[in-house]
């Protein structure tokens, strides 16, 4: 007789759906406690922001470096998490199933990021007559002025990414919310679960996912260039936007793995979340960590070898003098620590190992954003149109308001995620059900083997 799906304890689709629906209906004390904690920390971040605005205003960028870094960190990690759902759904990876909804839920943090981005628009001058992606410098004077560059287009790109992410969440959760409502005796709305509806849903998710992915890469590139690289005179690093795009894949996967672990451990979902999910994700995480190093090295070797005074100043600013400790921490936590952790098969084949690596990566990303944005924001307005960086600014050490904004921003993201998880089931009912149906255990010669069906 065939066993069901190879994971003790065995469960059917009906058992899984009932369990998820029941869990979704309850709010535990731990959840409420963390809602309060993150909410209060978020409020403290708002207080820090107001204090900073009152004391320093928006005329100079330098006091807002850590705020910008926090915004960039949230964009690179939380807002980028849906890429996990997009990429592994397109690849047809079965191990994606417990984590796709977690990844999609993080799209709600985009609302916070858009709100945080608005004050940043006042901190950066227009693209006219300086070197930017919008090519409105004197050499190309005949091109004329592009209205609103870069502000209008950056905010539009960010809003588009957030809308795409939220749309993906809404569509993906539609069937599940209908399930929940029907179990609660409420009206089910228009979702019937017909073959046509499922077909449209799947194709729609694939298309939305593709759009989201391309928008995310473009937005990361635009914002990182306009709000950091373009503010440092002479800094021309073609690999920088690709690095930022890679960081968003890195951060998105890391935050998803961390949340998956917390859900398994504190949400008591051990029967649905197994070592194999962490094992599969850890291989991608290791590859992305290696790619992080590769992209960094590609940029470094060219600047190091060129040895022009500008390149040497840039290396000193971003890596070896002014912000060297941020760089060492970013390098160590984004590359070395995950590599040394994930190199060992026994560590990859655990739930804690990949989670630990994810924590390293998230911390490393935070320091990396601080390194880039605080450094870029510390260039005075008068100097950003210079031909080359001639004088290194002093290191900007964070004060209490900066720390409040950093902690508040991250807590605000977690707070929003927790709120969203009350509205949408935290694990996808339909995708997990599909996975249960496509998996069984059968005897082959003298051993039991898992048989996995292809979903398309």
């Amino acid at each position, binding site marked *: 007789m065939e066993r069901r799906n190879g994971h003790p304890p065995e469960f059917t689709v009906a058992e899984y759906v009932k369990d998820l629906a029941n869990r979704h209906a309850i709010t535990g004390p731990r959840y409420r406690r963390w809602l309060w904690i993150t909410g209060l920390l978020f409020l403290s971040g708002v207080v820090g922001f107001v204090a900073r605005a009152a004391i320093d205003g928006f005329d100079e960028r330098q006091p807002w470096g850590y705020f910008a870094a926090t915004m960039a960190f949230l964009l690179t990690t939380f807002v980028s998490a849906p890429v996990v759902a997009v990429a592994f759904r397109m690849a047809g990876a079965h191990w994606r199933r417990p984590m796709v909804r977690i990844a999609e839920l993080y799209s709600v943090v985009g609302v916070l990021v858009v709100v945080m981005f608005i004050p940043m628009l006042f901190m950066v001058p227009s693209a006219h007559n300086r070197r930017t992606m919008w090519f409105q410098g004197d050499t190309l004077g005949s091109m004329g002025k592009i209205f609103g560059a870069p502000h209008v287009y950056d905010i539009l790109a960010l809003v588009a990414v957030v809308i795409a992410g939220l749309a993906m969440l809404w569509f993906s959760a539609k069937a599940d919310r209908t399930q929940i409502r029907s179990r609660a005796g409420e009206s089910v709305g228009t979702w019937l679960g017909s073959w046509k509806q499922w077909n449209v849903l799947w194709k729609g998710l694939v298309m939305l996912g593709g759009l989201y992915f391309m928008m995310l890469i473009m937005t990361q590139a635009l914002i990182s260039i306009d709000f950091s690289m373009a503010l440092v005179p002479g800094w021309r690093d073609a690999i920088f936007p690709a690095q930022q795009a890679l960081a968003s894949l890195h951060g998105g996967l890391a935050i998803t793995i961390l949340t998956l672990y917390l859900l398994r451990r504190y949400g008591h979902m051990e029967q649905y979340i197994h070592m194999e999910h962490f094992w599969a994700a850890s291989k991608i995480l290791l590859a992305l960590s290696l790619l992080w190093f590769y992209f960094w090295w590609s940029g*470094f*070797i060219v600047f*190091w*070898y060129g*040895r022009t005074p500008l390149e040497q100043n840039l290396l000193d600013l971003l890596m070896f003098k002014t912000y060297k400790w941020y760089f060492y921490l970013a390098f160590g936590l984004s590359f070395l620590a995950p590599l040394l952790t994930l190199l060992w098969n026994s560590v990859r084949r655990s739930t804690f190992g990949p989670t630990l690596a994810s924590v390293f990566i998230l911390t490393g990303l935070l320091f990396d954003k601080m390194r880039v944005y605080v450094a870029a924001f510390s260039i005075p307005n008068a100097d950003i149109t210079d031909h080359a960086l001639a004088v290194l600014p002093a290191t900007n050490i964070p004060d209490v308001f900066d720390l409040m904004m950093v902690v508040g921003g991250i807590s605000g993201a977690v707070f929003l995620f927790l709120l969203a998880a009350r509205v949408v089931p935290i694990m996808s009912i339909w995708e997990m059900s599909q996975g249960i149906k496509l998996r069984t255990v059968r005897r*082959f*010669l*003298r*051993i039991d*083997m898992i048989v996995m069906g292809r979903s398309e």
Partner: protein
Amino acid sequence: MPQMLALFSDDQEAANATEALEQAGYGNDNFDILTDAPYPEGAFGERETKHKLYVFPFIGALLGLSVALLLTTATQIAYPLVTGGKPILSLPPMLIISYEGTMLGAIIFTVIGIFFESRVPNLRAGLYDPRITEGYVGITVDVAEDRLNAVEQLFRRAGAEDVLKEGS
């Protein structure tokens, strides 16, 4: 002890035969399976293969790294010519060549390890039949002289198409 080779055209019959061998007192150490394609581990009841292949790339990598570092350091010190304003012992280029040396060492030693752990080249191969590469599953077993007939009967009952004995 003389060796016996039974050939099965059906892999399920071969699996049943290994079960029968175990019941007859022949442990995993006494018999071996010969196939023309990899089967999942344990499909014929064989024990998990223990190997130390993973040690070889580490040794190779260390050796490769040492040689590359030595080479890059010694050559630059032997001919100390400043080029492009870079220090004589420039770490980034040394790192690149050391990296390649490390990987080369790891790869070469991995292949040495593969040959070593696979026990190839194998000059005293034992009983073999070319039908194995045509899809037959072969089971070789070391049998005492006085039990040859009994084991042959066991294989025939399990569905063996042919049973070969050493010297036959």
